[in-house]
């Protein structure tokens, strides 16, 4: 049981090599946060019928099938038998491999684009260093939505018209309880804890996996790793992946929108200044 103390940093470490794609996280989240169903129907995209994180789906398990070309999964040559068996792999690289599953969630960024974009202060950073939308403040301006580099936050247009996303179970943390998804996760693929500990554990895990024959293993969102670029990271909800980020619908090197504010405004004002001079000239010249 993790001790939860205000003032410390907490987050998720999602180790996809332990994920069995059961979606308990999705259900536990909805049952705790009382979120309505919003599934898109049968997508035909493997077993993913959630499709994306949304205003009312705060965990999303992605499924990527790689049975067809074993070489793609591990660099291993397909075994003689696998060719016979319709060109599919039969011996798996250690740990989840030929069928990738990954439970996506809000990244609770070190510098959060949604928070920085929020004009009302509805989005704020809690005493646990998580990023939360305060529902008593949000007025549904929706500017946080295109700001997020991970496509996480969204307005609930069918419901209350406010912005929603994972709160890292803010209410539970206040009561010293771990978030619903991490608690439900059967295989400890979703680990909750103090960010420092998690990063340390994750580092060890990567090393261990490299030893055990998973050369593809790396952290996404860990300090200085993909996903944590341009001051966005380290992500407080980070991941251990075994294929390119894009395969899991994650950007390799996202950028921080707020960094574009100052240069943009200055360039704009400069232009206006120039045009003002032109106007001045026009009017001054026009005087008789």
């Amino acid at each position, binding site marked *: 049981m993790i001790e939860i103390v205000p003032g410390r940093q907490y987050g998720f470490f999602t180790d996809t090599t332990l994920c069995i794609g059961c979606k308990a996280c999705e259900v536990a989240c909805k049952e705790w946060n009382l979120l309505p169903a919003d599934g898109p129907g049968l997508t035909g*995209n493997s077993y993913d019928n959630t499709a994306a994180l949304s205003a009312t789906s705060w965990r999303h398990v992605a499924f*990527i099938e790689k049975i067809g070309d074993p070489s793609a999964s591990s660099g291993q040559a397909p075994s003689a038998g696998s060719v016979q068996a319709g060109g599919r792999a039969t011996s798996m690289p250690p740990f989840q491999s030929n069928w990738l599953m990954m439970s996506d969630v809000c990244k609770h960024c070190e510098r959060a684009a949604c928070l920085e974009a929020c004009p009302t202060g509805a989005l704020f950073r809690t005493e646990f260093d998580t990023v939360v939308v305060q529902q008593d403040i949000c007025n549904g301006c929706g500017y946080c939505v295109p700001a997020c580099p991970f496509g996480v936050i969204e307005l609930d247009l069918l419901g209350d018209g406010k912005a929603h996303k994972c709160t890292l179970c803010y209410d539970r943390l206040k009561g010293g309880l771990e978030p619903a998804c991490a608690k439900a996760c059967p295989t400890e693929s979703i680990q909750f804890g103090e960010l420092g500990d998690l990063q340390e554990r994750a580092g060890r895990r990567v090393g261990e996996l490299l030893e055990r024959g998973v050369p593809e293993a790396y952290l996404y969102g860990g300090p200085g790793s993909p996903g944590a670029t341009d001051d966005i990271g380290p992500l407080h909800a980070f991941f251990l992946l075994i294929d390119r980020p894009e395969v899991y619908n994650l950007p390799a090197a996202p950028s921080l*929108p707020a960094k574009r504010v100052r240069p943009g405004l200055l360039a*704009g004002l400069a232009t*206006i200044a120039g045009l003002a001079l032109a106007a001045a000239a*026009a009017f001054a010249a026009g005087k008789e």
Partner: protein
Amino acid sequence: METPYGRPHRPAPSPTRGEGAPRPSPLVGEGLGTSALRGVRGIPTYYGQPAIKAGHYRWLVVSYLFVGGLAGAAQLIAAIADLLGGRRDRAIVRTGRYLALGGALLSPVLLIKDLHTPSRWYNMLRIFRSTSPMSIGSWTLAAFGALSGLVGLGQALEDLAGLAVGRRLARLSGVPAAAAGALMSTYTGTLLASTSVPLWSTADRLLPPLFGASAAASATAAISLILELAGANRGRRRLAWLALACGGAQLALARATEREWRRQGVAGPIEREPAASIYRYGVLGLGAAVPLALNSVQALACRGWRTVSVVAAAATLAGGYLERALIVLAGRDSAGRPGDYFHLTRGAHGPTIT
């Protein structure tokens, strides 16, 4: 306790048998191999699903970008004409100030209507965040609105009661109003650029100038149009010169922006129809080329024609609106293209793995 079970279950209704909605078919036709790993420019995507969310901005925001920018620029032009212009320019000053006031009154209506919880509009002034163009904009609009009110009040006192105090009040408050106006006409470019939408974010240093220039052009056009219609445009040539400057800047910036989009490989949304034609003929042709031609004729001919000015002004306004609409709506398209986004965020040397 509110349970979700009282609330409607609301998945997209799965199509009834036989009418399966056409969806990307990851496997068939592509032979063996993992569709999810296939993508454009050697970068995979996740079943072609968007990697970011587009946001909901549509016509209300488009209209605000146009109206707010125009109002801001109008206040600025009015102030300059007030300080530097002669007696003949009083009409321009008056028109500019009333335009600014009108825009300042209309803008918040458009914005609040666009909120999904409009009853909480006041939270826009709950806090100030320098990282948020939306916050900067809210305060700017508030200031601009207040100052434009004073300016308008002064102008009204002068016009209706002929009070000199009105004129002083208008001139005094006109300067800060103009400053706010300058911000009003440009920050909206930053508002779009400071998101993760490829089409917007790649033009972070070009959209604000572009929006500024086209705001100035629109303001000039609006003023001259009003004066022409009132049949009292004694500043036609000066406005024509101004229009030339703004229009020229607008055209140059538009081309630069387009080049930047191509360079960064995110121009897809404006290269497909109907966006491409609207951009070429509407924004560049109608909005920039046509007025430029007509205004240069007036400027060089050292005289103006009423109809020419009217046509030029109308074309400028239409083009200015189309430009905002195109950029906002194409941005939604852009956000739905994971290939563009992943290309943009591939990192200096691509991801550090495999």
